[in-house]
């Protein structure tokens, strides 16, 4: 879960370029409600998986649409298959130590007939099971991204005076380290309310997790919370115990509160508690897929609209 934040650093420069591009496009005349491209996606274990191709290869790649990452990543094995060239290496500080990441630059990714060039791709020995790689917020930096679970379509729109369909709610976010951060309020037990900054992470398989510093600071595990199960999460050789149960309610910014939401809380491992993720927690796909959502980086907002279907994607 923490590994994907590795992608933040190498794509940071891209972010700056994107805003310039967005400003240039704003002055042109587009049919703003017509998508640049609309492609189907598959829902696997609740997550969004896109089928794309890379450069001149016709081999379909299955990429997890992961807003908890800032760029594109592929497995080293798939990169070798496609003949991607490593153009540079980057040492990145991560939880538990440093990791050297191989990066292939200046690739073109194809979403059906639509090509997006100049893409840097990070190569990892292993990534999430069942996908060839992940695609993060880099497309959201260049286009408005609409994810519709009802039709299972992901659509890209040019920045501009985009109008959201009625029936939803606009939520403002901040960008931090290339990630989308939402202000959320957790009512874990009756009478306890804690507000924090949560990563909007469509690549995470859970619904809601609170990171250790937030759990510790607000004494979430020792204030009457009754866990239903326990487990652990391991990242970079560090295993963190977790406890999962139901929160009385969870509210993303100005959205309607969701009651009895499953929440996972990170507990102390008895070792060094110096890990500072920079955020208070993360909202995963099992929460996100209750909504069709549109990410609009230009306005720093996400438009949430509850699914129209009774049977939601999870």
């Amino acid at each position: 879960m923490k590994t994907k934040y590795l992608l933040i650093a190498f794509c940071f420069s891209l972010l700056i370029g994107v805003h310039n591009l967005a400003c240039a496009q704003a002055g042109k005349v587009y049919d703003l409600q017509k998508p640049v491209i609309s492609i189907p996606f598959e829902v696997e274990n609740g997550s969004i998986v896109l089928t794309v191709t890379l450069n001149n290869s016709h081999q379909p790649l299955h990429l997890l649409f992961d807003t908890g990452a800032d760029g594109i990543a592929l497995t080293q094995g798939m990169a070798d298959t496609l003949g991607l060239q490593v153009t540079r290496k980057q040492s990145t500080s991560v939880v538990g130590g440093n990791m050297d990441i191989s990066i292939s630059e200046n690739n073109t990714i194809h979403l059906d007939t639509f090509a997006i060039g100049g893409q840097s791709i990070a190569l990892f020995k292993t990534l999430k099971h069942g996908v060839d790689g992940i695609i993060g917020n880099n497309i959201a930096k260049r286009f408005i991204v609409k994810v519709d679970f009802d039709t299972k379509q992901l659509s890209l729109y040019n920045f501009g005076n985009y109008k959201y369909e009625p029936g939803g709610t606009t939520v403002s976010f901040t960008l931090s380290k290339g990630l989308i951060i939402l202000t959320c309020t957790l009512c874990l037990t009756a009478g306890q309310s804690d507000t924090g900054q949560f990563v909007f992470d469509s690549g995470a398989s859970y619904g809601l997790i609170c990171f250790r510093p937030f759990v510790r600071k607000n004494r979430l595990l020792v204030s009457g919370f009754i866990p239903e199960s326990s487990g652990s999460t391991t990242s970079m050789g560090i295993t963190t115990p977790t406890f999962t149960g139901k929160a009385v309610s969870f509210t993303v910014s100005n959205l309607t509160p969701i009651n009895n939401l499953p929440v996972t809380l990170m507990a102390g491992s008895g070792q060094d508690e110096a890990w500072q993720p920079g955020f208070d927690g993360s909202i995963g796909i099992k929460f996100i897929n209750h909504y069709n959502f549109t990410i609009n980086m230009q306005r720093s907002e996400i438009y949430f609209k509850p699914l129209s279907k009774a049977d939601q994607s999870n």
Partner: protein
Amino acid sequence: MIKKLISAALFMGMSYGALAQSPVTITGDLKTDHVVPVNLYKVVDGKANAIAQEKPTRDGKFGFIFYPEYEGFYVIGTGSGISMMDAYKFYFKGGEKLSLAISDTSYTLTGKENSKENIVLTQWHDFIYPIEKKSVWFMKGNSTYVDFFPQFETAVAQSKTFLDHKTTGDAHFDAAMKQVIQFDLASYATNFLQTPRTAHPSVEEFSPYFVALNPADFTTYTQPLYSYPFGIRLMDGLIAVTMRKNGTKWQKGPTGVKTMIDVIPNDTLKGEIVLESLATLKNFSAYQAINDTLGKYVITDNQKSRNVAIATPLAELKTGEDGYKFSYPDSTGKVVNMTDLKGKVILVDVWATWCGPCRGEIPYMKKLAEEMKDKNVAFVSISVDKVKDHDKWKKMVADEKMTGLQLFATDQNDFSKYYKINTIPRFLVFDKTGKVVNVDSPRPSEPELKALLEKTLAN
């Protein structure tokens, strides 16, 4: 069985008959998966000291008859007496009959002749058993602070009224029982934090009992702690929790011991911490470093006597004493004597092939030997592998290209016994005349070892 009981009674009578006019008679059934010895402990200076052991009959019957040395708490159980595991408290002053059945993790009273005091103690044990189970039996179940803290706080609240309407009429016991409840709660609390768990709380997550836990409540006077069977263990736990709350790091040597005793207000009990620290040492210079600065807290005659018992064997190994003249074969079978190395400073590494930390020192040992190859230093590695692992040892010596003299002493060797080497790796330095420089020297991975060798060469 009867004969055994009588012989036990006579033996104990000789020791303690002067204080108690009537013996205590204990009969029991051991209802455990395996028949193991049952121990009877008295309380000495905050620890449970075994005074009798009985191997039950094949159907689990056991018994003790003894004259209690004092009125107060004793312990019965199949445990070692070091922890609260399989160790149950009872109160005797003489003349009582106790009948009990011991299971794998608890006990029940049986019969109708048990004293009021022991009935109250058992009621308390029954009440607190869910807490004891989670705190002491940490390997059974998977309790963490998330479930323990709220349950413990509830037990603490209920314990405040536990003794209501349970007055026995024995004023001495009734007062002692109030105290035992507080000491038990603190013991379960500290033991819980000090034992392996899948999750551990940060200090910010401590529940109110842990936040308020104050060592001074238990260690201002010696008597309450000394008369509690797990008193010293509790004091260690209180120190550990307090240091954690204060963010104090553990340190070696006098500074570390000073940090610990600063938590305890009573000087005599400070002395117990000093003695505990001294008892773990393996060389006289380390002993002197602590004793010279903190030995002033070793106050009572009893403590002084224990201090002498700790110092005597260490003094035999102090700097300047003749080193033990070892003599072991190398990989070719040629026997190497320590006296063969006279004229050289000797670094001895006691190790074994199965010991990970020992193997971790090998690269440093090789590097040190290379750096000092022109110096008059003999590098001697003594393997304490079992005889059956001789070939494994030879292979590792070859595979790892280990340098210096490689000797095979086996796990049953006099060198280890002489220097009380219970843990490895262990490094020892002797001067050019074979006299002790340091029998627990720094490791090759520590720069202090090279400095010590160079200093010894210069002398």
